[in-house]
């Protein structure tokens, strides 16, 4: 870590597409800092898969690395094919809440169930940002969006809890108000096996923040900071009180056998027997 951190060496020389104040910058930074601190001088050992949406642009094509920018919601299946054929590579999926737990929900659950060895980083901005601010599976109850002008009448999905229930080896949630915790979680996750899920609650000032009353991106980050509560503290609150809070921290860390271990053991056996 003697070398100074600079995002430049990991990026293509292209202008980033995010709006000013977007939380995607924070997540990108946290990820690149994490790989830097882990001692990766470049991203050669990584493959990035992403879907459609603003946060899917984090790796593609901006990372100077192999990146597969897939169809909306299909980054996890593509990552499955990549990882199964190249278990030696670090396969990292970036996506938004709409991509990962909206259209791609079933892939998410099944990858966690299989304990596929990939790291999924979901940037949760609680809205469909790229298409202009429509309701998402993570939109808070009663929040106004372009397709819920009277307020969302649906209850939001807790992706981290779902990952835990489905069988992920590692699942955490932080927000863009916790860049350091986020970075540390990424570092830890990159050292683990199996299905690893990181949710980064993030601000979308353009398509969400201003509609729900935040004048600036900074205001929203401040709100994240003030309304986040760690898992340890959360146990003391009632379910009602928790509804307005963002519970952050490490929800699970375990060592179930991973898909790669299991499937390659079978291939080895079949080859020897065959």
């Amino acid at each position, binding site marked *: 870590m003697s070398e100074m951190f600079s995002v430049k060496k990991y990026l293509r020389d292209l202008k980033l597409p995010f709006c000013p104040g977007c939380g995607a910058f924070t997540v990108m930074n946290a990820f690149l800092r994490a790989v830097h601190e882990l001692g990766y001088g470049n991203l050669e050992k990584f493959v990035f898969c992403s879907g459609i949406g603003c946060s899917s642009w984090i790796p593609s094509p901006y990372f100077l690395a192999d990146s597969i920018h897939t169809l909306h919601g299909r980054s996890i*299946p593509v990552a499955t094919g990549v990882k199964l054929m190249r278990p030696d590579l670090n396969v990292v999926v970036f996506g938004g809440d709409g991509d990962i737990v909206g259209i791609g929900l079933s*892939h998410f659950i099944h990858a966690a169930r299989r304990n596929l060895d990939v790291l999924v980083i979901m940037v949760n901005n609680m809205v469909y940002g790229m298409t202009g601010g429509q309701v998402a599976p993570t939109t808070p109850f009663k929040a106004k969006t372009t397709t819920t002008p009277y307020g969302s009448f649906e209850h939001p999905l807790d992706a981290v809890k779902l990952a835990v229930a489905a069988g992920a080896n590692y699942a955490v949630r932080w927000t863009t108000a916790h860049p350091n915790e986020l970075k540390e979680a990424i570092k830890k996750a990159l050292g683990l096996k199996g299905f690893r899920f990181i949710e980064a609650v993030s601000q979308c000032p353009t398509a969400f923040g201003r509609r729900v009353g935040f004048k600036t991106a900074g205001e929203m980050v401040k709100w994240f900071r003030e309304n986040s509560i760690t898992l340890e503290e959360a146990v003391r609150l009632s379910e009602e009180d928790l509804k307005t809070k963002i519970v952050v921290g490490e929800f699970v860390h375990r060592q179930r056998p991973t898909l790669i271990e299991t499937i390659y053991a079978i291939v080895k056996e079949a080859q020897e027997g065959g």
Partner: protein
Amino acid sequence: MRFAKPGVYFWQGSEACAEAALVAGCRFFAGYPITPATDIAEHLAKRLPQVGGIAIQMEDEIASIGAVIGASWAGAKAMTTTSGPGFSLMQEGIGYAFMTETPCVIVDVQRVGPSTGQATKCAQGDVMQSRWGTHGDYSAIVLSPNSVQEMFNLTTRAFNLAEKYRTPVILLSDEVVVHMREKVVVPPVEKLEILNRRKPKPGEKAFFGHEEVPPMPSVGEGFNVAVTGSTHDEFGIRYTADPVVHRRLVERLNGKIQNHVDEIAEVEAYNIENCKIGVVAYGCSSRAVYDAVDEAEARGISVGYVRLKTIWPFPEKVVRGLAETAEKIIVPEMNLRQIFYEVARAVGGEAKVIPINKIGGGELITPEELLNKILEEV
């Protein structure tokens, strides 16, 4: 046992397809159960690990084609199998594979549709879906076997074409060909032509242009390849505003197939130079052609046929050539006219085109039915 030893086998179409895939170098399969394609998946689930490959049942067809695309970019020859409704679910992914020039093989074992229709019965209703299933302007390569031996031969060819043209290739089979048992001759592996994708040299960067079929790196080889289904330049960088970039890309993708119709479009032709009546047939319904033609000839009627082993790109020249001698061309199909219009278009009024269509219950067009039509038309 690694590969099927050279020799003569009595196989089902499904086995022939699976074994051919192994010989062709397929090392990854992802699929979702659907009748009547499941037998191929089950055979591959057993056989792929024996040759060091991976077979996985995904949560749906959308995930299956996604995993196949990922595996292909990881360097593997990869395939999936499905039937009509599952094929519909895969279409978005097939378009992505076309746009990103991802070699892969999709086997569609046709059954009676639309919708769940008659799930266990044979039909040929996906001909147009195989050509135009996804959105946008694209050109598919679609092969159509009519026997178990051809399931073997065309499966290997499908992989070869996919690798050579860097594109998804569809093997459009059907319930009858996949489930029947026939003699199959497996040649020694060394005698088979097996093609592999062209790999880039160190330092190369233009994996999506410059050449008609650019070289394809795999991920993890140090090429920093950016793959996207969005319009992209030759370096894979998204470029979604410029009409010229889009035109150049999509015209090349279509051109790399349409400019090679003569090489890609394989047919079996018989007596097309002097016949009075022509038949254009493909897949399971083409099995009626041989007996019907023999019978017709025994009665002194000169019949010729073109059997499409490749449906798309459509072997237009050969079909047009048939019309130079044949006054009438009969097109038997187990659908309500899907190739009929294509034949009529190719023939351009030079011959009268006559359909025979039969759908439902998996009932094949019999040699008698075809013969009767021939007799009616002379």
